[in-house]
């Protein structure tokens, strides 16, 4: 086992799959010689050649269409969208086309595509790069939306996503790329898509979250513990489809819950999780389920990020409201 950052684990997952299956292809802007602007594909072109790992012209809709076409010809494309803030340029390919191919052809065409992209915020990118747009994706029937929060999960989830025959949107939080290392096994292993992970067990409140907010939530749980509250932290890992079983089981145990997301408040994953809880476990609840989110503005200018992004203190405040309701 090796100590890896999340980005190293992601590169490793792609290396494993490029080696295992010659139909796997990686392409996107600057993913070749340059190894991607975050270096997620570092060394892969050198190792597997330009036929397998290649730069595209600068056009996201072109990249999306290329992936769809290649998928119909038996390949397993892993296109990279350089920053998820640019996803609007490829929305038709993703939400309009790849999500619907299987359906439109009565099940004839598989779409074994993994759209990888850095997302989230907190790293002072220029305008329009950073954002949490997983809600847009999760609202699109036909897509799976996966968001790892640790190096170990990133590798196992990415390998599963590559082997999945349906389109998967794989969102890599920019702040987590290099924020910490973890033991990551060599070679292949998979983590089932659509399964949440109970990061920390507790009995007083369930904190349901994903992405970078998993770490803020764990930190909050530690603080709450000092004040005598036992918080359970659930990392969704896949935001669509949701692991409803794990969520409901936890809420039935703790009777209280909050949902924490980095994304803005309007619509979104947190609202959906709460709706599921209301529909399936309302009688277990002793307090309303509250949300911790960013405010409903456009993703902020870099200087305002630290005050705009939710953090562990917000998680503590909201958890206490629910705990003392």
């Amino acid at each position, binding site marked *: 086992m090796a100590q890896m950052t999340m980005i190293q684990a992601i590169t490793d997952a792609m290396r494993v799959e490029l080696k295992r299956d010659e139909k796997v292809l990686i392409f996107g802007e600057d993913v070749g010689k340059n190894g991607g602007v975050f270096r997620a594909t570092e060394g892969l072109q050198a190792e597997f050649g330009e036929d397998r790992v290649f*730069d595209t012209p600068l056009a996201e809709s072109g990249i999306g269409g290329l992936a769809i076409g290649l998928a119909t010809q038996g390949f397993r494309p892993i296109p990279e969208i350089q920053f998820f803030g640019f996803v609007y*340029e490829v929305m038709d390919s993703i939400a309009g086309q790849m999500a619907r191919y299987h359906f439109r052809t009565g099940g004839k065409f598989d779409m074994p595509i993994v759209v990888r992209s850095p997302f989230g915020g907190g790293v002072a990118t220029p305008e329009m790069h950073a954002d949490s747009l997983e809600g847009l994706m999760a609202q699109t029937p036909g897509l799976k939306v996966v968001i790892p929060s640790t190096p170990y999960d990133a590798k196992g989830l990415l390998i599963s996503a590559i082997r999945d025959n349906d389109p998967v949107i794989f969102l890599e939080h920019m702040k987590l790329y290099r924020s910490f290392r973890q033991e990551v096994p060599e070679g292949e292993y998979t983590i089932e898509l659509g399964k949440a992970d109970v990061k920390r067990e507790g009995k007083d409140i369930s904190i349901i979250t994903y992405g970078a907010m998993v770490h803020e939530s764990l930190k909050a749980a530690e603080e709450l513990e000092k004040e005598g509250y036992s918080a359970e932290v659930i990392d969704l890992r896949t935001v669509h489809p949701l692991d409803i079983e794990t969520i409901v089981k936890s809420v039935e145990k703790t009777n209280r819950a909050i949902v924490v997301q980095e994304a803005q408040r309007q619509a979104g994953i947190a609202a959906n999780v709460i709706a599921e809880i209301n529909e399936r476990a309302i009688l277990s609840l002793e307090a309303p389920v509250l949300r911790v989110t960013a405010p409903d*503005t456009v993703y902020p*200018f870099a200087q*305002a990020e630290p005050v705009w992004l939710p953090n562990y203190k917000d998680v503590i405040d909201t958890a206490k409201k629910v705990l003392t309701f």
Partner: protein
Amino acid sequence: MLPGIIKIVIERKRQMASKAKNAQLDVNKQLETIDQQFQTLQILNEEGEVVNADAMPDLTDEQLQEIMRRMVYTRILDQRSTALNRQGRLGFYAPTAGQEASQIASHFALEKEDWILPGYRDIPQIVWHGLPLYQAFLWSRGHYQGMNIPDGLNIYPPQIIIGAQYVQTAGVALGIKKNGGNTVAITYTGDGGTSQGDFYEGINFAGAYKVPAIFIVQNNRYAISTPVDVQTAARTLAQKAVAAGIPGIQVDGMDPLAVYAAVKQARERAVAGEGPTLIEALTYRYGPHTLSGDDPTRYRTKEEDTEWERKDPLVRFRKYLEGKGLWNQEMEEQVIEQAKEEIKEAIKQADAAPKQKVSDLISIMSKNLDANLQEQLEIYKEKESK
């Protein structure tokens, strides 16, 4: 008799058709012809010698000096911005050194009333169009007041989404036309930008509506690390104009006079109602793509850098002006001093900008805040008052 005549006519038609068909099928010839039509316009060579007097634009000595002054100033701005970024006193920055002729001379061909839709690298043009430098710095730092552009300045915020400025330019120029104005809209993208669907849509719409627009492509050979020959099989980017039915010109983008001449003509055509022009300027960025971790040695060679540094726009223009007795060391130093002084002042001004609050951001979300935002505004104001 009649059937005979008809037969002859038909045969002739067939012959013509088959001849025409052959010419149409000669696809290599077709590509060759297109390639031949797009030769690079150069007026000043690398030595600062006039090689194309026919195309020489009409510029007074003062105007020539002003172009030089602005290019020198902009080079200093680039150096200072880079240094300030490294000290953590500036945020996002996309270096401009090497591209001064493309940026400054193209802008110099405009009028104050013309509208600019820049890309993220085109800060010099909007600063010379009147944007206070401290606001450019605020934008770099990620402050919302950076692009709160003062009234009376016909400037749009630098585009981040590559290609988006091209389609919007078609709209701006159509608006100018509908308003009966005699100004133009000018926009900038890079070689990579020409691959976007928006690029084609923008020039096509502009051609279809025959609007007063100028589309500049600063071909600095790389889109981050991706070389231009990965972008397209086309030999030039200027020839992309053909499909839109608009003129396309390729110029030596290291030659301020060639750039100026092409843009000046495009502007004259535009205000005369003759429609848009696409101009490709062949240039090079000496620095990294941006200062956020790009390392050009991963994808460019030292030899290529050196080859392009020999074409430097400041060097050749300085030689040209010195030859005419219009420029000297002292003038250059004066510009450098002035630039440094003004940059220092602008940084001070940027430092004095109020800290950004979430409530500020909420309040600029829309003209009238809906109840949801109003509620959030109150919550954040309350939090911020503690």
